């Protein structure tokens, strides 16, 4: 025991770690519309420890020695990296044959590069990984995983060789059509945007004379007015949507959401106590700018890559406009038919605007003061 003690004591002066890099393998997985490309880089030193690749045992590993054992290396990698991949339809994707072995030079030595493709019938969706490479010979080994989904969103994970199965969602592919649908969807579920439009459209079928409203007689001026309002709104929110999407401007969302509520409130109040009758497009333009920032946060939730933003941005905006056009067309048809009813100014315009104003007031309080008034706790 005393001998052992002496040996140990000598170690002390070695001090703290003169860290060289510990053992890492690099997994680079990139999903696309028809499957996934897999690349695994494993340090030659780790492979030699495991498989004794240095056949002539001269302390130098040559390309010939390595190449002769490519099959075993792949087998080792596949045992260490258990991977299943399913596509968007729930089908199993199938691994293709291993590409010819290659070499990568990294800062701490050379690595064997194993590459293969996984073929899917639909975009790859769920990847389940269980990692246990070198678990028995080096528990400090780690797998550094870089995972890129079909939409380009990437993540990095550090895998311990513990064999736990980890399911990873690659995210649905964002086809341009789906982004268009998202745009439509957003305007339809975005009650605040719709109510803002409705508040602007409710009085469009009436003409103000003194203190009274009377039904409009000719369709053309009504349509021109609506066109002006809708165009101003569209132009304004397109500008700010683009500015926010490219991260040129990104105001705090609490301010944006509060101002959107305020815009709905003001538009409704203007119907009850008309101050601004002509040129409402100016007001619409100003508030449209705010709504654009609101759309941008919905676009951001899709997690698109900034480099590939132009196409999706255009489609998303187009979706918003289409959704908006449908709302406007349907609603104008309805109120044009109702405008001559004697109760329209009082009950539809007045009552409707009052309801919108009340709801907008609640939103404004909630959003600006960070309260929760409507939804149950």
């Amino acid at each position: 025991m005393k001998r052992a003690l002496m040996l140990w004591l000598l170690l002390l002066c070695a001090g703290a770690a003169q860290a060289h890099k510990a053992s890492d393998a690099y997994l680079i997985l990139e999903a696309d519309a028809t499957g996934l490309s897999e690349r695994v880089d494993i340090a030659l030193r780790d492979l030699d420890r495991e498989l004794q690749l240095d056949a002539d045992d001269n302390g130098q590993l040559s390309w010939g020695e390595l190449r002769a054992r490519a099959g075993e290396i792949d087998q080792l990698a596949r045992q260490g990296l258990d991977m299943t991949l399913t596509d968007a339809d729930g089908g199993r994707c199938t691994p293709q044959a291993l590409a010819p072995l290659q070499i990568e030079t990294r800062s701490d030595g050379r690595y064997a590069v194993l590459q293969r493709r996984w073929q899917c019938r639909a975009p790859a969706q769920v990847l389940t990984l269980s990692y246990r490479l070198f678990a028995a010979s080096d528990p400090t080994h780690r797998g550094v995983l870089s995972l890129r989904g079909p939409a380009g969103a990437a993540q990095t994970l550090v895998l311990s060789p513990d064999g736990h199965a980890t399911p990873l969602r690659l995210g649905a592919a964002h086809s341009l059509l789906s982004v268009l649908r998202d745009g439509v969807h957003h305007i339809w579920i975005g009650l605040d945007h719709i109510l803002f439009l409705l508040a602007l459209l409710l009085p469009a079928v009436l003409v103000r004379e003194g203190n009274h409203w009377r039904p409009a007689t000719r369709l053309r001026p009504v349509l021109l007015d609506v066109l002006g309002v809708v165009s101003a709104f569209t132009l304004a929110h397109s500008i700010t949507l683009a500015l926010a999407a490219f991260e040129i401007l990104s105001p705090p969302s609490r301010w944006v959401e509060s101002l959107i509520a305020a815009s709905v409130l003001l538009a409704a109040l203007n119907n009850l106590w008309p101050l601004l009758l002509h040129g409402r497009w100016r007001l619409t333009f100003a508030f449209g700018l705010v709504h654009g920032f609101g759309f941008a946060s919905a676009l951001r939730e899709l997690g698109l890559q900034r480099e590939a933003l132009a196409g999706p941005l255009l489609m998303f905006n187009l979706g918003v406009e289409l959704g908006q056009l449908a709302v406007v067309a349907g609603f104008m048809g309805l109120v044009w038919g109702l405008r001559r009813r004697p109760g329209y100014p009082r009950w539809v315009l007045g009552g409707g605007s009052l309801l919108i104003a009340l709801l907008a007031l609640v939103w404004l309080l909630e959003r600006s003061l960070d309260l929760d008034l409507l939804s149950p706790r």
Partner: protein
Amino acid sequence: MRRLPSLLILLLLSLRGLASPYTPQADEEVLEQLPRRLAAVPRQGLALPQALGLAQAALQRARQEGDPRELGRAQALLAPWWHLPAPPPAVRLLRASMLQTQHQFDAALQDLDALLASASTPLALRAQAELTRAALLQLRGRWPEARSACTRLAGHSYAALGAAVQVHGRVCLAELDSLQGRNESAAAALAQLARYPQAPAAWILLLRAELAERRGLAEAEALYRQALQAEPSIYTRAALADWLLARRRWAEAAALVLSQQSNQAELMRLPDALLLRLAIAWRAGGDARASEAAAQLQERFEAAALRGDGSAHARERARYALDVRPDAGAALQQAIANWALQREPADAWLLWRAAQLPAAPKPLAAQARQAFEQFRRESGMQDARWSAAS
């Protein structure tokens, strides 16, 4: 499994440095220099004494060669006991040493405290735990606690183990004295202790060299060289290289660092601490390979950060930002982060240097200066590298 999305940028940066994979031209092309092959060891079913012996040897190689893969091998050998809350004392002691080497200081201290608290720890292991703990406490700047540990070692508690333990205790006390500004008496004590047959010669030589350097004495160089000869450790080699660098002897520093390399073109085999000194020597000496060495270091830091080991490199990163790719902000940040982990003279020197940088961000520089001044007041340390200037 941890999720590290913020490290994505790092990964992209580290991938940027990569050439794409290639196919070698000829079967004869040598791809890798391999470490000595060890006798094959059965993976499972090793008895404890056998596993311990092999793991100790692996730990020693890890420290001599600076290769953390050996730590992984040692951990694999101890796998049946590694995750036990209270493994057998010998395993626990080894685990503490390995955790210390991996900069997991708190976990290492926990194991050492538990070993000393348990009545069933054999005396020899207890002495080793005490000494390891003293070294760790000293590294962290917890000197009063380190001093009590060294005092116990130098006293009669471990007399049954022979004179060696007492000598180690006295060396340890002399080292603490030398850190606290009692330079002359410490130097005399170390010189005297070196004459004992049971004395740890290499350790004492290194301590004397470091003390001589702090005292600004030219004899430091000869002491460093003797220490390196007594035990060719990476730490000592790096310390001697630093001595040469401080004297602008760039070519000698580079040659010293590379003297162990069989193939001088392959920087990738150099441990981080030595590659760092090489990068400094080459840059200052105007060597054409300077940027290659710097890029390699940068890549290693990024790779370590990717696996979550970023903080273990704070000392090297601070030095890198001071002397390889000057960046006042990064130098200060790393020096301050390192100071939270390690408080040896080398760390104080880095902190002081970073705080002196003219381009340093003001609040960080003030923070570093304050930490340094407080340390200097409380420790009484004297170091020619900064005493004269401040």
